[in-house]
């Protein structure tokens, strides 16, 4: 059900391209959408993002929703995340691929069994800090397909990320008993460039 909802949202994001939008509205429209498998953001997560440059460095921010069904976790888990990506070092494999490395930081908010942002009334004040938030730094690799023609393929890139949850990092720093390689996790994802497609379509219309 939730997966269906996510796919509907993804579909509508592409529907933006069907309208003749003004420059102002264009700025509000996310320039890319993402679908991701794993990475502590649910079995599958999806969302939208914006690209921009700071000091000539390519940056992206994406808001994502992820879902993990009961079969994996004892109860349904909903995950909202804000993903901050810095892309650097572009390598080009002629005719085929453009590779970009990335540094990412995800802020993960989870709604799961016995998690809380504000403590229930029966706890004394300050008994626990919120256990709903986590951070995950990661490094990533993004591959953009190279195409001379304006095809859908040109707007698609695939990415993979290798990350570690902040609590695991804390255990590794605090104690010598936890192996970092046991706690690294990987994700796979697809990024679809909406705005590039949009601007190309507007260009054709004029």
């Amino acid at each position, binding site marked *: 059900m939730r997966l269906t909802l996510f796919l509907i949202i993804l579909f509508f994001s592409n529907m933006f391209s069907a309208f003749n939008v003004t420059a102002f509205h264009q700025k509000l429209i996310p320039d890319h959408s993402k679908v991701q*498998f*794993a*990475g*502590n*953001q*649910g*079995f599958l997560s999806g969302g939208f993002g914006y690209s921009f440059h700071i000091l000539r460095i390519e940056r992206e921010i994406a808001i994502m929703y*992820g879902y*993990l069904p009961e079969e*994996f*976790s*004892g*109860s349904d*888990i909903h*995950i909202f995340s804000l993903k901050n990506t810095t892309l650097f*070092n572009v*390598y080009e*494999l002629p005719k085929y691929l453009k*590779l970009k*490395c990335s540094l990412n930081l995800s802020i993960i908010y*989870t709604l*799961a*069994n*016995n*998690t809380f942002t504000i403590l*229930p009334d*029966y*706890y*004394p004040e300050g*008994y*626990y800090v919120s*256990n709903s938030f*986590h951070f995950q730094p990661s490094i990533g*690799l993004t591959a953009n397909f190279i195409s001379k023609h304006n095809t859908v393929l040109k707007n698609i890139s695939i990415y*993979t990320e*290798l990350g570690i*949850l902040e*609590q*695991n990092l*804390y*255990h590794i720093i*605090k*104690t*010598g*008993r*936890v192996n970092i390689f046991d*706690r*690294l*996790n*990987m*994700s796979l994802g697809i990024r679809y460039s909406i705005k590039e497609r949009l601007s190309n379509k507007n260009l054709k219309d004029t």
Partner: protein
Amino acid sequence: MYDSAKRVFIFFVLFLFVGCDIFEYSPYDDDLETNIRDSNSKNISKINSILTETETDSFDYALISDTHSDYDYLHDAVKWINRHENIKFTLHLGDQSDSGLKFEFENTLNELNKLNNPFIVIIGNHDHLSQGKSIYNTIYGQTNFTFTIGSSKFIGFDNIVWENANNRPDFDWLQNELNSHNGNLFLLMHIPEGCMSMELYKEEYLSIINQINNLYRFHGHTHCLDDNWPKLITCAITEKMIPVVSVRNQNVSYKIESF
């Protein structure tokens, strides 16, 4: 430049094929990497097989508690316990995690598995957080359980209130288990009755235990050692102290050891 790209690419591909465990869906899921299941009941069987007939009424065991994510201290405690052959088993009095997350349970289990002799773990308030209870059930079994060694009966009792959706602990079960034994009784329960979360049920609890003879109560939670024998609160593992309990038929005593 292409060489660098290749290296980065190979690095990611290698990680991808290391195994499916590399994909994590959420820190709150209960998809455990360890295959250990129902550890408490398996270890109870081991205790009974380790102790010979003559030893079943004469044995020593160690108490540890509130290990949280202090794995270095736990590692040292395990090494100390392993050096003392008189200690036949170890009881962990709860709070083996900070947030009830699966990797915290697994980290603790990795250290406890290094014990030469069996260990029994009861649930603490931190272990109840998130999916903690479900993970505890998978690895260790039921949160309320009993076992007997000779004429001694051990009762592991889950008295967590707030983290257990503010539910009343199952005092009916406790009363039933306490009343059905005449030898030494050891009640293992994470939160002592003086703590705030037990405040609501303190009178009910005291009315049950006050009727029982030969009852020894072992707790954790406060992180400080508190001797009010036959009630003993075990300190956190960071205090580097281990109470060792000696059972000699009807005589039960303890000694605090440092590691």
